[in-house]
């Protein structure tokens, strides 16, 4: 089905907020350095696994992404307050 064009416009340009969410990328999980090594061994990714090589290298040198300014995840409302997502028109 052809969807209305408006659905592709994900942000508001006049100051308002549209509803939006947040994706958690796998590389922020603590299992990721093991995963990167495993994928490097399998070597099944494009361009000779160049991306995983970079991941494995930088994670070996500095595997800790947690810093003083990190925050513990509580719930979606916290993410909204931080301004990382918005409930838009939802009440």
């Amino acid at each position, binding site marked *: 089905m052809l969807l209305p064009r408006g659905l592709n416009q994900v942000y*508001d340009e006049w100051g308002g*907020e549209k*509803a939006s969410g947040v994706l958690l990328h796998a590389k922020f999980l603590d299992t990721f350095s093991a995963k990167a090594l495993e994928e490097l061994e399998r070597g099944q990714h494009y361009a000779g696994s160049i991306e995983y090589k970079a991941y494995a290298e930088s994670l070996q040198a500095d595997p800790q992404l947690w810093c003083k*300014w990190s925050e513990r995840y509580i719930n979606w409302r916290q993410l909204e307050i931080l301004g990382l*997502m918005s409930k838009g028109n939802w*009440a």
Partner: protein
Amino acid sequence: MTIGVVMLVHTALGRAEQVARHWAAAGCPVVIHVDNTVPRKAYDRFVKSLADVPDLKFCKCFRCEWGTWGIVAASQAGSELMLASFSHVRHVFLASGSCLPLRPVKELQNYLAARPRTDFIESATTADVPWTVGGLDEERFTMRFPFSWKKQRYLFDKSVAIQRVLGFRRKLPNGIVPHMGSQWWCLTRQTLSAILQDPDRDVYDRYFRYVWIPDESYFQTLSRQYALKIESRSLTLSKFDFQGKPHIFYDDHLQLLRRSDCFVARKIWPYADRLYEAFLTNDADALKKTEPNPGKIDRIFAKAVERRTRGRSGLYMQSRFPNEDWENGVTAAPYSMFQGFSELFENFEPWLTKSTGARVHGHLFAPERVYYADNQTAINGALSDSAALRDYNARAFLTNLVWNTRGERQCFQFGPDDNQDVCWRIAKDPNAQVSVITGAWSVPLFPSNMDFADIRREAAQLQKIESEHMDILRSPYTKARVRIWTMAEFIEAPMEPLQGILDEIGHTKLNRISEVPRMVDLSGFGQFLQNLKNQGMHPYLMGDFPVERGITAAQKAPRKPYLVK
């Protein structure tokens, strides 16, 4: 005496059946109107499923397209059948298939029994209330609307445009005053039958047939002719979003709806099982006599509309990315920018921290790195001190910084050596407090160990940049609170400007400044400026700086000779 319910149904017939049974079980006669577009088979199945319910009738079907006469025709047919078939009905309640009673029907019956002559219909004159969202106001009543807005938008718009050009105006029959309001009403038999049996009904019907959205004005206008006592509010809770579309209630609105104390709410999502389960019960153990109280719901939905249309000032993210000058506030909180102060005073930053309690950063926009307060390498939101990352979008860096640290006043140093991309954004930001001592950039050059030719080139460059920045700050587009002093002016009396700045920042710990920042040693500085002048580089931003400070000031101006006539 009881209430009769006229239900307009066009979809989710299963839910409509449930609600109809609920009304009927409480002893309310029900008349159902099913939209013409419902397939024959589905219609027959629906009629059959309700065959066992007493006091339930189906009326003649009309085509109910949004904004057209069909909905009024359906309400008329339903009401006529209701009044003719059930003589013990005193109030007729117009509801839709997606309406859900929130309180036991008995409570509604008691409520209406206590107000036997009152008509509940939201009805306001168009002239006084700017209700319509992005639609036609008064023109609804003075133009003709033969085309469908949904299906023939082009013709609809064209016909409106043509009628505007021609100045076409319809006359209102019998001098009625157009009123508008929610299409969901509850009218007494007296009022409703007076409308339906009016000898002039043909005239009114002919007129309203071509009014735009007559379901929000037909009964609202005509009830004003006959009603003894109108309560201009709807007993049906319905909320509209910022585009004028009705808000749909879901399972997570359960508590909110419970606390509203409204009798009926719409629109309910057909799959909101928890809502239907929770509200379609009639345990009348403890009947409440409370008035409907939609205040809380109103506030929450008003907030949602505000969030959607105005958003949070100073937030830039994936679903809020305002065009320039449409931000509703450039930044999230007030902040202060100081130019020339840390050059002129040795301990300006610690002094400012001490006397205001604000977070005082160094040169945030310095070319080599971001100088955060306390020499940190990152701050709130893990904002890094990398100059490359910052310069990729310096304006966003500033708005991010202010957003991330909201709740704490931010102050930072700025100068002509820093990244100037932010100048306009700061100048146009009402949250910015900008204080500038012009020419103070030359103070660090004075004791430096550079060749004089290099100093001269550097000074010329910095002066040019600062001069451009001052033009921005003095432009008519500037919304920031700007204070500019020349260096000569400032060192004459530094206390007064400093006190003014601190007072404006607000939460100062002391009423008067007790400790003063230490000014750098300026002896010989006048000569330094004179040397620059002698090399052909005129440093004018400092103001009139005497060559030998102190000596010239002490010298008395020679007296003017008296002229004796």
